[in-house]
């Protein structure tokens, strides 16, 4: 049976979500169809807000509602320590651990020749510009998987001549592990027990 075109359109859009197959997309679409109109309006509004109100921070590329994110704008935080992460999910995970009081730098990915991702596709240049300021430590908090490690090694080579101490989180995180999925305690331990690179 073919779905009615407006329903099929929603199913098609939902199927593009990571982890959502055709079957779950259909279930979600039918769920929406059964909702009262006000409920669906709330969703539309929320989605519109996501794209219009959320901005990427000009300094660290984290998300926020202003040009400069809350973390970069905070006077309570140590702006001279930069924790380099792969993406925004990792900022959220590390923040949840309440162990870290410095600033971040969101790379937006990791090096992967297979996927055609090079340093030009990441916020590497922007990181190096930031490091020309008064930075007293860089913490590399990339996932301890193959690409994350290679990216850490790459960044370490770039930062080494700048005479800034580089450390990296490792302890407690298994090889092939993912920061996003580690529990808060593990992340907390990993950040506070970071080792010199």
């Amino acid at each position, binding site marked *: 049976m073919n779905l009615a075109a407006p329903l099929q359109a929603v199913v098609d859009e939902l199927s593009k979500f990571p982890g959502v*197959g055709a079957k779950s997309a259909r279930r979600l679409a039918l769920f929406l169809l059964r909702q009262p109109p006000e409920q669906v309006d709330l969703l539309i509004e929320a989605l519109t807000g996501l794209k219009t109100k959320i901005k990427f921070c000009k300094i660290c590329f984290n998300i926020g509602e202003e040009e400069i994110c809350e973390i970069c704008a905070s006077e309570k935080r140590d702006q001279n320590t930069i924790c380099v992460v792969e993406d925004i999910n990792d900022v959220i995970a590390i923040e949840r651990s309440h162990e870290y009081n410095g600033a971040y730098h969101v790379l937006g990915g990791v*090096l*992967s*020749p*297979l996927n055609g991702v*090079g*340093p*030009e596709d990441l916020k590497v240049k922007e990181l190096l510009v930031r490091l020309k300021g008064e930075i007293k430590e860089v913490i590399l908090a990339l996932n301890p*998987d*193959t*690409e994350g*490690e*290679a*990216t850490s*090694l*790459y960044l370490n*080579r770039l930062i080494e001549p700048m005479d800034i101490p580089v450390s990296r989180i490792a302890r407690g995180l*298994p*090889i*092939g592990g993912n920061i996003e999925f580690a529990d808060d305690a593990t992340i907390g331990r990993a950040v506070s027990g970071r080792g010199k690179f």
Partner: protein
Amino acid sequence: MILKSLELKNFRKHNDSKYEFAPSLNYLIGGNGVGKTTVLEAIYLISTTKSFRSSPDSELTAFGAESYEVISFIESFTSHKVRIYYSKQENKRVYFNDGKPLARSADIIGKFPVVVLTPADLELTHGYPADRRRFADQVISQASQAYLNILLDYNRTLKQRSSLLFKLKEQRSRSFLDQLEAWNEKLVNSGTQLVEFRRRFITDFKDYLTESYSNIMKKQETPQIEYESFARQDDDIKKVFAEKLAENRENELRRASNLVGPHRDDFVFSINGKSLRTYGSQGQHKTFQVALKFAQFFYLKDSLKNTPFFLLDDVFGELDKKRSLAISRYLKEVGQAFITLTDFSNHEFLSHDENDAAIFLSEVAAG
């Protein structure tokens, strides 16, 4: 560890087969094409996530079926239900351990250790270094999750690095060369760990090999196994690895491939100091292959404190009576084993008592 039962649904020729096993020797008996090797293949798949016939999942799916399913009940410290479900349409295979899907199927490796002896084992002593590396990797991976992770990481690094070398062949840019430095360091780091692991493994494994060889051949023959890598025994592995990379730099760039590292290691076998490859008789080759598998069995048993499944596929047809008898006796020490045979009558010497099971497979049972 005991495999209690196995259910196969749309797995090769088995549309719907169910087997209950004895905790000792299980003889799977039937003519050609009844799917007895497939039963071993399914057990191996549960333990290692791979088919020992190197078949892709699409080939394991019965003709005309959309999915296959393997369900097993295993006693390993406690009871486990392990289920594999493969869907052809999604080309996706999921492992369930006690109802919970595993995030990556590799997580099952080592939980239910297995050893397989097949006619293809002749490649172990006659074949290429890759065949011997695969054997060693398979043994160590089952014994150590840490090794498995390093191996997967190293292989992924090789892939990434060869992709980068390929780009460099087309365009030797500054950016690519800088990235290569980082990938070199990554390769050296995980490659060094791999070599260290393999060294430790061979040191331990030697004694197991000597022991099992003498159990099969009661002659004055001493088997040896030597690990051959780019670094010699007393070398600083990391340093030598980096030097060899530097030496081969132009070569690697020209050929766009990984030319140095433990993915080119070999293991060299000899008997009484003489190379098996050059001087070994057919009988010695055969004994060596079997001894390697028994050594694997007892090595895994000791390191995991868990008795592996022992699978023997069509082994006795190839062996002379003396060796067959020795192996058959040796099997009694093993625990649970699964042995395929065309029929019993040619193999009266095989030990079988009331504790063992003879399971007859026929075309009808195979559907």
